[in-house]
């Protein structure tokens, strides 16, 4: 699938201006390139246009610049590279800015394994078109899905979505067609369609990038949903920190009104649709459906018991469909190309694609969109390029703060909603954190529990008090005060939280603890019985030393140590002063020769 061939006749230089690349100086790069074009002058035959796109996915190698139609990809571009880049348009490519596979420079996006194994539907236009241009979106097939939907009855639209097998990508994987059908069945008006753009998972940025990079796709999905259920009003609830996403969405809304796509008569059909933005309440729990609606209504962002579903009584007690950004952005393609085309991608129970934000100890981090059912191994090793420094893989954490950790033995699991849940993790919204052997799984569990202690709403007992007690027990274990029976107590609290908590946050909050106990129990036991942290992370249990034979005396560790605990002459073996060492592990990270060893703390 290549949507790039729909671009206009002028040559275009695509400068990624997603949040990641802007942070790395993309705006300066775009300016420098524009200046160079002005100075070098485009030749008579080639018109050059610099197009500021959304995130191309490989943020860690940004700013990313791409030439179209020649399809040249440049990475880690600096403003000073602008001259060479513009000059290379008709000449030899600038090798030092290209991706290398086995030492050979890769020219095209499709040849970079990071992209080659991906299948882009939601992200098809992200990083390719100018997000602020309605024309470019339309040229890429945008709003054709809505045009088709306008010729269909609501049932036909819902049938098409049903046929696609699309399941909600906000985490729970609820079939979108079924949700729409239920909402369509209630004769209570007004009805609402709400887009969940809260994305509170730390480390996740797929929804933000989609809203930034192709805002019209989200609006088109909402418009189609509104037609299907009979809503005339829609709200986009966008995370407070997402200023750029909000700007782009607002820009797209304004353009859509001006073009008659939104407003009194959607594309001249006589259907009314108004869309507006509400800024998120700033807590992770505000992404939960009932808390989100409370927040829109101006109340405290607390979940409520959900025995009566939002499709029946949601926003302002009216039928409401809440869908995730990625779910909605999948809709236009389904209506345009048909539900069966979409259903051909993916597995039996999970259709289509999923966008993941892969971060952590993997060589290529960034946004990836793959068919459902892709294995974790493909994600980590083929797309991600393996573990940094080729260290051993230890675990992959999926599903956000209340997801779970999956060990190496399960790397061949296909990633879909049901498989991940079966193994105590979950799809969540699509965060993936890759961990190497220098991660302590007890400490990882403690970290997430700590996050959830602050981000739960704190309304119900099991979640609030269960997390408080888990935090204290896990801290004890990490600091050498673990006691026999702690693991079993954590499990009892965890199971109670799963069953008795009020909302899905509390019900899933024990996942980080239960999944690490399930797959890494011996690591808990080592902490509790031997007072040892096998990964050498928990400071209270770990002692660092330098192996004289392996040390080259390069001094990197000395520079890295924040406590000034390392001494040694150049090219001589270095030493760590245990009295000064704070066991932070910086030296181990810094050493390129594996000379820093950890042992059980004896003192």
């Amino acid at each position: 699938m290549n949507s790039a061939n729909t671009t206009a006749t002028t040559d275009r230089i695509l400068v990624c201006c997603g949040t990641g690349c802007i942070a790395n100086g993309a705006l300066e790069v775009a300016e420098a390139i524009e200046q160079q074009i002005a100075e070098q002058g485009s030749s008579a035959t080639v018109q050059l246009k610099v197009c500021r796109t959304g995130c191309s996915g490989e943020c860690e190698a940004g700013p990313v610049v791409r030439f179209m139609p020649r399809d040249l990809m440049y990475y880690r571009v600096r403003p000073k590279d602008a001259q060479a880049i513009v000059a290379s348009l008709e000449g030899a490519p600038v090798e030092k800015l290209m991706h290398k596979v086995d030492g050979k420079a890769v020219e095209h996006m499709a040849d970079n394994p990071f992209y080659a194994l991906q299948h882009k539907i939601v992200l098809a236009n992200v990083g390719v078109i100018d997000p602020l241009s309605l024309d470019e979106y339309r040229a890429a097939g945008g709003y054709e899905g809505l045009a088709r939907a306008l010729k269909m009855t609501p049932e036909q639209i819902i049938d098409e979505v049903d046929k696609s097998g699309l399941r909600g990508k906000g985490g729970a994987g609820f079939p979108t067609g079924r949700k729409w059908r239920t909402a369509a069945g209630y004769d209570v008006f007004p009805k609402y369609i709400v887009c969940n753009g809260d994305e509170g998972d730390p480390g996740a940025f797929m929804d933000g990038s989609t809203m930034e990079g192709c805002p019209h796709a989200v609006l088109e999905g909402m418009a189609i949903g509104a037609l299907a259920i009979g809503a005339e009003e829609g709200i986009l609830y966008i995370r407070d920190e997402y200023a750029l996403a909000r700007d782009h969405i607002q820009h797209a809304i304004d353009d859509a009104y001006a073009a008659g796509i939104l407003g009194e008569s959607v594309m001249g059909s006589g259907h009314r649709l108004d869309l507006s933005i509400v800024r998120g309440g700033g807590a992770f729990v505000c992404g939960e459906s009932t808390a989100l609606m409370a927040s829109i209504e101006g109340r405290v962002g607390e979940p409520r018991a959900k025995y009566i579903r939002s499709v029946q009584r949601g926003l302002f007690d009216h039928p409401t469909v809440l869908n995730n950004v990625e779910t909605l952005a999948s809709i236009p393609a389904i209506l345009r190309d048909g539900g069966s085309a979409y259903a051909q991608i993916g597995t039996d129970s999970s259709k289509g694609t999923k966008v993941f934000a892969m971060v952590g100890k993997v060589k290529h981090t960034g946004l990836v969109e793959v068919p459902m059912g892709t294995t974790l191994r493909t994600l980590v090793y083929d797309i991600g390029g393996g573990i940094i420094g080729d260290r051993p893989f230890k675990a992959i954490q999926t599903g956000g703060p209340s997801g779970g950790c999956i060990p190496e033995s399960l790397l061949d699991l296909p990633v879909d909603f049901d498989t991940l849940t079966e193994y105590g993790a979950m799809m969540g919204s699509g965060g993936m954190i890759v961990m190497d052997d220098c991660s302590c799984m007890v400490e990882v569990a403690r970290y997430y529990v700590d996050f959830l202690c602050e981000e739960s709403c704190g309304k119900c007992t099991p979640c609030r008090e269960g997390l408080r007690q888990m935090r204290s027990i896990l801290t004890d274990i990490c600091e050498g005060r673990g006691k026999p029976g702690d693991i079993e107590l954590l499990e009892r609290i965890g199971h109670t939280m799963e069953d008795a908590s009020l909302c899905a946050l509390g019900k899933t909050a024990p996942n980080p603890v239960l999944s690490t106990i399930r797959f890494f129990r011996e690591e808990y036991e080592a902490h509790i019985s031997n007072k040892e942290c096998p990964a050498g992370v928990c400071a209270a249990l770990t002692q660092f030393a330098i192996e004289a034979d392996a040390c080259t005396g390069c001094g990197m560790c000395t520079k890295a140590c924040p406590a000034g605990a390392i001494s040694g002459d150049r090219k001589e073996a270095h030493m760590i002063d245990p009295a000064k060492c704070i066991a932070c592990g910086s030296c181990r990270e810094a050493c390129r020769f594996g000379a820093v060893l950890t042992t059980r703390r004896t003192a």
Partner: protein
Amino acid sequence: MSEMLTISIDGKECTCKKGEYLYDVAKRNGIFIPTFCRSDAFEDHRACCRICIVEVEEGGRTKVVTSCVYPVERECSVQTRSEKIMEERSVVMALLVHRAPEAPSFKNMVGRMGATETDRLVTLDGEKCILCGLCVQACNALGTGAISTVNRGTEKKIDTPYGKGSDACVGCLSCANVCPTGAIEYSETDTTRTIWNRDFELVRCEECGQVMGTQNSVVFAAADEVVPTMCDSCRKKHLADEMMATYRYV
């Protein structure tokens, strides 16, 4: 006409209206389910203490639900004391006891219901509040809305906005009176009541001298009517006396 259903609770056949809350059905049939955050005084229940969990078997599937807000929509079989429920309830109980070690009523409950015995749980020293939210509901029901839950996660608590004396508060003590654990502190001198960081002038009945409330609460309760100067019982007595005087000769 609402539809009637027959369900079984702990083996007992119970009839109920479709949509009725499970807890209400159980109670009517003499089956005890513990509750902390639910009160007949309010129509809405926060469903936050989670002590009222029960197991429901519906169409071959068993799930744990909170009975105080679970609407009975179809035939089902309910267990209020299954092994799973007793285990999880005892964990919830242990969590609450350690959260609010100073709540006296809890000690008795533990004796009756059992809580997971463990010395591994941390306690919040001096805490009495179990965050049931009844005080907030009471205050909202009055229309004052002076207190709410503030903060989130483990830091959640009940307070006035920014922890300062609130203009909305009338010092009526509804919150303190509804609180099951006596967690809301207030003090009184002859002339002043102090609650939620604010001092209120006390008003006494001009007849018997009993405290009628705070100046603010008496005015608030009177709404647009004349502000009373006598307590309820004195006023009734007065009314009776007046009636006597009027009708004496009839």
